[in-house]
């Protein structure tokens, strides 16, 4: 029942904020979005939303935007693509929100891309992957650090080849995000003449990975690139630990979703050691910017009450950053004109708590800031250890690097 | 040990169907009473009323044991079984996918019956040696005659004092019918049972019956005090053979 009071509370805060404000005559600035709060994406959606809410409270404490309070209008899209079109129509046509944020992840975002393009609306993307590549909307800005489509696979394979990897195994989930990763990984491998010795796609709800890992091991790869979803990520690592993966493997990981979430991390504990996986933010020296520490102080306190991810590294700061970019754009253009805001966002570099952000023409980051980090010295059953630096050493990008790859994989696991 | 069953003015049926109309009948301790009549005349319904499976609309149904009278219309079938009444149902109603032994053990389901389980099992196997040979066979795979034996043996497992038997001859060849009826007579002598047997096979039933009733369209048409009286009664032939002969 707590959960309900939290959500009710979130709306109540929005309403109260409006009433007690000094600028009571001015209507609030409404930012609308759907967010997965039930279904498969709900875990991420809730953490992301908390980041955005912290930004809202910060900006309102500073007196709002253009002297007006900021209010969030949030609906649950149940992690499903079929819900979002109606929700965004309601946000735009009924609630008349001033600005739109996208829901967390690709699936719920994809159906609204044509809608915002057609209506000429600004949409701040929220960790979706390549949704704009076919639509080509020039008022779309993704907060995720992905960068160009192939940079993800490229950075991992860079590390792998430097460590002496000569062939690759691909293990990917049969779901939208993982398949997109697999696609680029195959392309990059082809360009670099890396033979793919194992390429398997597993269905959602796979219970047991022992068989798959045995088959993978039998192919004797030295690079293992995995693109998986949270329930499977844990299953795969367990199976790897139990079945073994062979001494040939130089590097393992890459695109495993789930290893960024506190619940999964604390549960897997030492099984994580040695895995090189993508990430977005980590408590390493190179990752602190203006306001980063303050943000996490607030987040840590509120996460407990909201029953969301206690660490919140993966999504929450980017939700906050999304707000910061809007804040900068609105304050500089002194208006809510969406074309103006979009122009500003496209032409400038923005300082945020996740570092400077600049966009390329397609609304993705100019340069990738997706981290590749290696888990080291992780102990079992301890969430708090992940708050200290050194547990996930950043190997890429060069600018943010805090250590070097330990290879082969078996050596790094010790 | 005195035990008697008294039924008075019993009306019963299923919804719109009236199966029994004002049935009055009694069974005294140690008697074998035959309830005769062709199919669809209400014999089974009467048996079910005694067991508490069908609730009568009107009338009295009482079982007297050692001067204590029990109103069966108010008791659940479980309680009636505990009083020492058992029914061998029409069509045998065995559990086809259970073994012979398992069927017998279920006959002793009531707590009261479980104490005598070994004796009763021994008695059953002694009376029906064929069952002992086949104790691990599935009931559904046995022949009709063997199934009928098992149904009777299963009813005995609850140590009944009043045994109700509904149409033991159904689907059996004449030889088997005769054997089954003889077994019932034998058992009765051996265990000291009181028996109420519904049967359409007139000649076989009266072999072991002390007296009998004939039921037609849910009403008692003849209440005969002796087997001879039954044999003499013309209604039997009218009923069974439509008046010819």
């Amino acid at each position, binding site marked *: 029942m707590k959960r309900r009071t939290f959500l009710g509370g979130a709306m109540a805060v929005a309403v109260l904020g409006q009433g007690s404000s000094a600028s009571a005559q001015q209507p609030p600035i409404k930012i609308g979005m759907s967010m997965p709060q039930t279904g498969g994406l709900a875990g991420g959606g809730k953490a992301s939303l908390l980041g955005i809410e912290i930004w809202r409270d910060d900006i309102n404490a500073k007196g709002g935007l253009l002297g007006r309070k900021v209010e969030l209008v949030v609906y649950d899209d149940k992690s499903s693509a079929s819900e979002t079109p109606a929700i965004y129509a309601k946000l735009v046509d009924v609630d008349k929100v001033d600005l739109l944020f996208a829901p967390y992840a690709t699936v719920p975002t994809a159906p609204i891309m044509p809608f915002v393009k057609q209506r000429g609306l600004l949409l701040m993307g929220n960790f979706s992957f390549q949704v704009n590549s076919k639509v080509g909307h020039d008022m779309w800005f993704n907060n995720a650090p992905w960068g160009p489509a192939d940079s993800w696979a490229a950075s991992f394979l860079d590390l792998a080849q430097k460590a002496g990897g000569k062939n690759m195994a691909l293990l990917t989930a049969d779901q939208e995000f993982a398949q997109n990763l697999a696609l680029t990984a195959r392309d990059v491998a082809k360009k670099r003449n890396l033979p793919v010795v194992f390429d398997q796609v597993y269905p959602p709800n796979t219970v047991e990975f022992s068989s798959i890992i045995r088959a993978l091991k039998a192919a004797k790869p030295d690079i293992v690139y995995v693109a998986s979803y949270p329930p499977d990520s844990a299953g795969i690592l367990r199976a790897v630990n139990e079945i073994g993966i062979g001494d040939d493997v130089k590097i393992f990981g890459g695109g495993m979703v789930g290893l960024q979430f506190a619940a999964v991390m604390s549960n897997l504990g030492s099984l994580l050691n040695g895995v090189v996986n993508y990430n977005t933010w980590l408590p390493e020296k190179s990752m602190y910017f203006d306001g980063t520490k303050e943000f996490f102080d607030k987040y840590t306190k509120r996460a407990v009450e909201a029953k969301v991810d206690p660490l919140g590294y993966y999504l929450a700061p980017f939700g906050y950053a999304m707000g910061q970019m809007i804040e900068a754009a609105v304050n500089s253009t002194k208006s809510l004109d969406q074309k103006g805001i979009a122009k500003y966002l496209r032409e400038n570099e923005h300082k945020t708590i996740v570092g400077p952000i600049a966009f390329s023409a397609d609304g993705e980051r100019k340069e990738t800031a997706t981290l590749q980090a290696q888990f080291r010295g992780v102990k079992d059953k301890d969430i708090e250890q992940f708050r200290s630096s050194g547990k996930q050493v950043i190997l890429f990008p060069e600018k943010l690097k805090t250590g070097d790859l330990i290879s082969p994989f078996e050596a790094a696991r010790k | 040990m005195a035990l008697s069953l008294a039924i008075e003015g019993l009306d019963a049926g299923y919804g719109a169907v*009236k199966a029994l109309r004002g049935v009055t009948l009694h069974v005294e301790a140690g008697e074998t009473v035959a309830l005769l009549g062709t199919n669809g005349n209400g014999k089974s319904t009467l048996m079910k009323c005694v067991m508490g499976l069908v609730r009568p609309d009107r009338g009295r149904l009482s079982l007297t044991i050692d001067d204590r009278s029990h109103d069966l219309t108010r008791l659940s079938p479980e309680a009636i079984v505990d009083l020492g009444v058992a029914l061998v149902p029409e069509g045998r109603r065995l559990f086809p996918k259970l073994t012979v032994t398992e069927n017998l053990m279920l006959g002793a389901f009531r707590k009261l019956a479980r104490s005598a389980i070994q004796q009763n099992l021994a008695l059953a196997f002694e009376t029906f040696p064929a069952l002992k040979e086949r104790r691990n066979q599935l009931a559904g795979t046995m022949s009709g005659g063997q199934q009928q034996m098992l149904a009777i043996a299963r009813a005995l497992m609850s140590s009944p004092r009043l045994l109700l038997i509904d149409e033991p001859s159904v689907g059996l060849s004449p030889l088997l019918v005769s054997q089954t009826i003889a077994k019932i007579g034998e058992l009765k002598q051996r265990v000291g049972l009181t028996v109420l047997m519904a049967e*359409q096979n007139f*000649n076989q039933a009266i072999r072991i019956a002390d007296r009998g009733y004939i039921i037609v369209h849910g009403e008692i048409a003849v209440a005969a005090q002796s087997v001879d009286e039954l044999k003499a009664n013309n209604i039997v032939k009218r009923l069974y053979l*439509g008046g010819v002969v």
Partner: protein
Amino acid sequence: MTPAAAPDAPLLQVGAITKTFGGFTALDNISVDIRKGERFGLIGPNGSGKTTLINCISGALRPQVGSVVFCGEDITQLPPHLRARRGIARSFQIPRPFKSMTVLENLMVGLDFAKVDSSQPEEDVAMSILTRMGLASKASASTDTLSQVELRKMELARAMAVRPKLLISDEAMAGLSSSEVDEVLDLLISLGEEDITIIMIEHIMQAVMRFSERVMCLDAGKIIALGAPAEVMGNKRVQEAYLGT
């Protein structure tokens, strides 16, 4: 090919039917011809195979061996609805009304699908059948409000709606009182006078005697007697089957 229109060809030819269930032989090499317009009684003790036989005729079951020929056409492999369309209708031992429909609608099902060309509106036809059956006042009643005898009549009426050449009545009188038995019997006899061939399964022997032109007695899946009613009832094997040896 026998010409279907031969005037004295039997309406229904049951040719050496054998039907087994698992190891149990329910019908053993049964052959019988039924003439057009005949009133045919089918008797036998419980479990003798009567219902299995009419299930094989109406198509609910298919025999392993043998054939069923109706109006010169081999219908052994036809599903029940195609037999119904060719003119075989039946009632059920335990009434099976379409519960969510009214009495009239029950009849309309038969009229809808039996492919009878008629200039009259269906509802009028249905009403006239109900009137015949004495159910006109119940036309819009739901079937669960009917009494037993009304349900039996409704089943016969529904069978009549198929416009049958052959009507099979499966114990349409079971569980009825004497006066109700007469009522249903009169109905069946009057239908027989309209050139409808009727097979009647019955346990009530007076009814069988009064109704039938010919009677067949089954016991343990075999024909033990076939002929005029009095003749069959006088048969020793029949008497044994019923009264026992």
